[in-house]
């Protein structure tokens, strides 16, 4: 199959062969499929997105806890409910709580859920001055001193 090339000057017109097209499409699908077969996060690109142990979180810097389990929000100090489906509202809540520049700790379970990593990545991009951490162990790992009376 061939098309007359419309952009070429001159009266001859060169053909644009569509013959390689199926091969290019197949190669694209193959590459995308191959990526699915590999681990989602290759080690070199995952420097700090693994969950952080509670002891390694700088609690003295009063991090803001972003709780993705909305129904539980409010049980802890510095806790903000964060609904990633309503991203702008979530960001506004972080800013109102003075979260800009402070460490942000994502609390939700299970921590292995890729959704959390996506939220963390997006938060990092949109709030570059903040450290975004995933709390290893979820809520049980929060220090008792942070429990609201």
């Amino acid at each position, binding site marked *: 199959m061939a098309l007359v090339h419309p952009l070429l000057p001159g009266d001859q017109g060169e053909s*644009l062969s*569509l*013959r390689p097209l199926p091969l290019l499409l197949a190669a*694209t699908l193959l590459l995308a499929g191959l*990526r699915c077969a590999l681990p989602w996060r290759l080690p*070199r690109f995952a420097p700090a997105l693994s969950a952080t142990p509670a002891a390694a979180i700088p609690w003295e810097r009063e991090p803001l806890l972003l709780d993705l389990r909305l129904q539980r929000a409010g049980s802890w100090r510095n806790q903000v409910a964060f609904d990633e489906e309503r991203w702008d509202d979530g960001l506004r809540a972080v800013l109102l709580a003075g979260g800009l520049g402070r460490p942000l700790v994502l609390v939700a379970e299970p921590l292995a859920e890729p959704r959390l990593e*996506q939220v963390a990545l997006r938060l990092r*991009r949109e709030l570059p001055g903040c450290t975004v951490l995933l709390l290893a162990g979820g809520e049980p790992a929060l220090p008792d001193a942070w429990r609201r009376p």
Partner: protein
Amino acid sequence: MRRACDRVALLLAVGLLLAGGIAKWLDPLGFQAAILGQVRLPLALAGLLALLLPAAEIVLGAALLPRASRRLAAVTSSGLVASFVLWKFGLLATGFAGDCGCFGGLLRLPLPWSLVLDLALLAACLRLVLVREPGPAR
């Protein structure tokens, strides 16, 4: 002179398409997050785009090398990159200041610089579309 221009265009187009494609292909979650940071899309759709777009860029970059597929790859790449350029102008107009994710975790570029690279890539692809390959000997 013209041949030198063509070679530079070819190198630029292949290099940028492969570099951007491979960087994103290695980090699909990062690219998915970048897409979600720019537009409200369902997670699954953003994930699909994050898989297909880098793969397409790699394939197009590689397809520019053999003469048999060069013109088709150049035409397709021009369309793809033109859509990126339009998208980024739109983002600039909304005041978006983040990283567009075009080079995955390899390179974080401010949007204006990424747009400059895309314009250079578009120019290179269009140049390749317009190149007349020497025909077969008669």
